[in-house]
């Protein structure tokens, strides 16, 4: 990440900080199941918008922090975020031209596969609780994507983040 002042790095840092705080937000149990993957959404947005600056490495490091926040195995979220950032960068030209609802479907599949991976990790570490509720975050993330996208785009344009 470059630190030149006109690059407005703080906007990116701020959005990730907000995502992490939303991730930590204490919620009632039923709401926890619906909690969207805030950090992944923000990362995917920035990887689409600034593919030269936000990529696999940033995703991986953010993921390690998310692992600490969620007290999961170190590397569990790092791996999914790295892959999500990679996919977002690889397809960013095409995806940016998609209508929002098509993007949202893409988000659904990305979060869905990440959740399948988490279920699998829980199974390996003996914490398995096979439950179809694992799919909820993918739904809520998908529904939130248009708002996240427009919100972060406005933020980006307002502060001329490039």
């Amino acid at each position, binding site marked *: 990440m470059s630190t030149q002042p006109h690059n407005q790095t703080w906007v990116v840092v701020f959005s990730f*900080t907000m995502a*992490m705080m939303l991730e930590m937000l*204490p*919620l009632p*149990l039923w709401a926890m199941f619906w909690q969207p993957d805030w950090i992944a959404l923000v990362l995917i947005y920035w990887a689409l918008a600034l593919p030269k600056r936000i990529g696999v490495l940033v995703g991986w490091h953010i993921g*390690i922090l998310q692992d600490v926040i*969620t*007290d999961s195995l170190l590397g569990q979220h790092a791996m999914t975020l790295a892959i999500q950032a990679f996919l977002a960068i690889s397809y960013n030209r095409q995806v940016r031209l998609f209508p929002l609802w098509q993007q949202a479907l893409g988000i659904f599949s990305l979060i869905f596969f990440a959740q399948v991976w988490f279920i699998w990790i829980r199974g390996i570490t003996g914490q398995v609780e096979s439950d179809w509720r694992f799919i909820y975050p993918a739904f809520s993330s998908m529904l939130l994507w248009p708002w996240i996208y427009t919100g972060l785009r406005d933020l980006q344009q307002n502060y001329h983040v490039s």
Partner: protein
Amino acid sequence: MRVTVMVVLSLITMVLDHRLHYLDNVRSHLFVLISPLQMLVESPIRYANLLSEAMTSQAQLLHENRRLHKNQLLLASKLQTFKSLEKENADLRRLLNISQRTAQKTLIAEVVSVDIDPFVRKMLINKGSADGVYEGLPVLDAQGVVGKVVHTSVFMSSVQLITNLTHVLPVVIQRNGVRAIAEGTGATDQLSLLYLPDTADVQQGDLLLTSGLGGLFPRGYPVGAVASVKQDTDLAYIEVIVNPSSPLDKNKEVLLLWPEDYFKQTTAAVVQHQQSEQDPTAPVATPEDINVNSTP
């Protein structure tokens, strides 16, 4: 390809973290980095609580004060009998040459987050290694056993609840001293007892206490009550479901419990404890001994 490298690196860190615990230090340092954010997130809730306390009317306060006063009197009277029993117990133990139960150091911790991950039963508390918290420290509340500390950082720790699927807890039935192992089921309010043969004397409503056999939890703290017992002739063991005494998903404050001699002679105490467990002639772990407080 950078992404392949990162994926491989993630797999390596995961294995290191899970199998070898090499990364516990890294984790606790990163935890410190995160904790200001965590404080910030929970501060509105904390201030809301403070505000609602400040706004309580005098009448309410008086009412609560009276209620607490009554409660305190009741507890004090109970404590008197307990004191004499404790002394009697100590005397008897001395006569029998059994090591004495020691008083313990405790600390109240606030629960920061009840569920870190909705599928994994863990909670976050606001005490860390700066307060002397270490991994494996027992966590209780006013009603019973809550769990044990699994990760610590300077100011916060994560606690694995007894309902966590990987949590096993040696217990004893208060009524008759039958020993069992209570395993978490992953549900918020259920434990199950492992390896009880169908001849075992377990009834609905039986109270379970910690047996102290694992060496981690002190003996005699309530764990839960038996909710249902199901006999299945196809299975070698009976299915026993237990409801934990502690309201695990509603806790606001928990109690950390240190063994008295932890700070003085940790290793010596642990070794002594293990020896007394391994020695079959030592009467420390017999049912009668555990049952000493219950009425026949």
